[in-house]
């Protein structure tokens, strides 16, 4: 087990003036045994960052250390990590047992120990009866478990997950998510988990790293990220539907963006902001009201209503007020949070 330290990590492809910088100096420390989710839209550099930890991408500048050891120049196999890939990357011609045992065989671990470790991992993942099968004879969820088994038997200091759930269907995804969480609770191994799905991020993470355009926007617990988003990007990326970012509404200073989540707007009889309703979406437990603040030309605003409340009609004007302590202020120029 080990902590991971990112020290001004930079990734550039190419050299000279044509160089394309994709990671712009990430500084972060992942504590020993922590489960950290790296989340962001596609192309934000989250997978690149993970692959740099794994040793599959070179680190252009800065250092990454695992357990206090700078790993920049180490081969993936020497970094004491294990990785689970999005498409599982199982060796198609090997049985489940051989897939899990391959790395250990290369490390020349004695055969009886290999067997013991694989059996133990198979027991944890309930793969015991499939050990002699080939990957193509397994379902997607089972293959995913084999990929995890392959990671477990290495007994690494760090687990790396590269969008491991995105090839599974919704039901299996939720189930596997719970399994990963349980696994982490039992083994307590430092884990980095990359995903673009904020639900996965919120549910799995002890702390989450929100990335955008190669920069780390915020690094904190899901609560912190939800309740105190550091930038407008984080505010709009985390939470579904996204936070309303309001400018030029009544009572807001010039140069300030006001952020209010749809679930933190309340309808009042009079006063507050007038919201002209345009569309109402029924989601089951709740309704999403889409409308414009301050007349039809105002900014697009979403309001979340419980299904027990009476739904407004299209064209109707509602009066809304934000919950007092759930209002966020951002600097309009930099997008950074203004602490009040």
């Amino acid at each position, binding site marked *: 087990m080990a902590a991971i330290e990112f020290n001004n990590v930079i990734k550039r492809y190419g050299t000279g003036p044509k160089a394309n910088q994709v990671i712009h100096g990430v500084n972060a420390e992942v504590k020993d045994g922590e489960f950290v989710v790296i989340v962001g839209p596609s192309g934000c550099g989250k997978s690149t960052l993970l692959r740099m930890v794994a040793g599959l991408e070179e680190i252009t500048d800065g250092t990454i250390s695992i357990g206090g050891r700078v790993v920049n120049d180490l081969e993936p196999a020497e970094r004491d990590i294990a990785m689970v890939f999005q498409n599982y*990357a199982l*060796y198609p011609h090997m049985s489940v047992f051989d897939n899990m045992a391959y790395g250990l065989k290369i490390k020349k671990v004695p055969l009886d120990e290999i067997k013991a470790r694989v059996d133990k991992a198979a027991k944890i993942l309930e793969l015991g009866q499939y050990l002699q099968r080939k990957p193509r004879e397994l379902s997607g969820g089972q293959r995913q478990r084999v990929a995890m088994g392959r990671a477990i038997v290495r007994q690494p200091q760090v687990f790396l997950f590269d969008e491991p759930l995105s090839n599974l269907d919704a039901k299996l995804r939720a189930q596997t998510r719970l399994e990963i969480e349980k696994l982490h609770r039992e083994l307590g191994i430092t884990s980095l988990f990359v995903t673009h799905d904020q639900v996965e991020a919120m549910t799995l993470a002890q702390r989450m790293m929100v990335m955008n355009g190669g920069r780390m926007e915020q690094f904190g617990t899901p609560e912190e990220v939800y309740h105190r988003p550091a930038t407008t990007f984080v505010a709009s990326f985390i939470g579904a539907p996204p936070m309303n970012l309001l400018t030029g509404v009544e009572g807001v200073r010039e140069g300030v963006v006001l952020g209010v989540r749809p679930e933190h707007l309340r309808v009042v009889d009079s006063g507050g902001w007038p919201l002209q309703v345009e569309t109402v979406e029924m989601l089951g437990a709740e309704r999403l009201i889409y409308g414009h603040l301050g007349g039809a030309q105002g900014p697009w605003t979403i309001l979340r209503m419980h299904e027990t409340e009476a739904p407004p009609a299209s064209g109707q004007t509602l009066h809304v007020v934000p919950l007092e302590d759930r209002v966020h202020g951002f600097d309009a120029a930099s997008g950074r949070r203004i602490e009040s």
Partner: protein
Amino acid sequence: MIENRPGTTAIAHTVLLLGVLAVGFPVYLAFVASTQTSAEIVQNVPMSLLPGSHLLDTYRLALFGGETSYGSRIPPAGRMLWVSFVTAIVIAVGKIAISMLSAFAIVYFRFPFRGLVFWMIFITLMLPVEVRILPTYKVVADLNMLNSYTGLTLPLIASATATFLFRQFFLTVPDELTEAARIDGAGPLRFFKDVLLPLSKTSMAALFVIQFIYGWNQYLWPLLMTTTEDMYPIVMGIKRMFAGGDAANEWNVIMATAILAMIPPALVVVLMQKWFVKGLVDTEK
């Protein structure tokens, strides 16, 4: 096609039967001729289409050589079959080994002029043996490799087609597999041996069949560079059996030799058919 009309089925079967007949009849003719004496073949015009009674005599003569009833000497086909067999095996195995390794280098390693190397290999596709046969002969002669297995096989082993085929196959192997192997601590050669080689099994089998037949059917090259009878491959041997000038052809022995020459490639195809088809059709990686 899920069509089921008796008319079309009948036409399809007729065409197929005609095809079988067109391919099968000459082989049958060769077989019938090989069971008769050469006198019977020459005297009965047209030749009898029923097998004669000299099957064993003819094949013994063809395989081990000896004097015929006319007094002409027949060289033993056994030795020639062996030469052909060794040549074909060495060419097939050599081609697969070399082209796999070069494809591995081209796909998985970054080295200077990689693109150039690939295109040079690719361009040699345009230069079959026949085009470069004289310079090749000169080189092989200067290296004292005439009348040797090395000379028979080495110039034919380099194969752009097979390199290209393996390159295409390696490109379809997902990158994650390579990365997983790297994380598992497998070096390049270990990865080649443990992952690529087993995955390429079917492609290798398909190529083996094609290249074995290619090697077996070599005619022009051995014709040029072998001058002693003990290094003649079978295909050349058949041609040499045709007597020049007025001498009579020993048709029965020639046909027997032809049949013998057909058996090994046929066996290779039949025995490896399952793999062969899988290698050409299989897309599941």
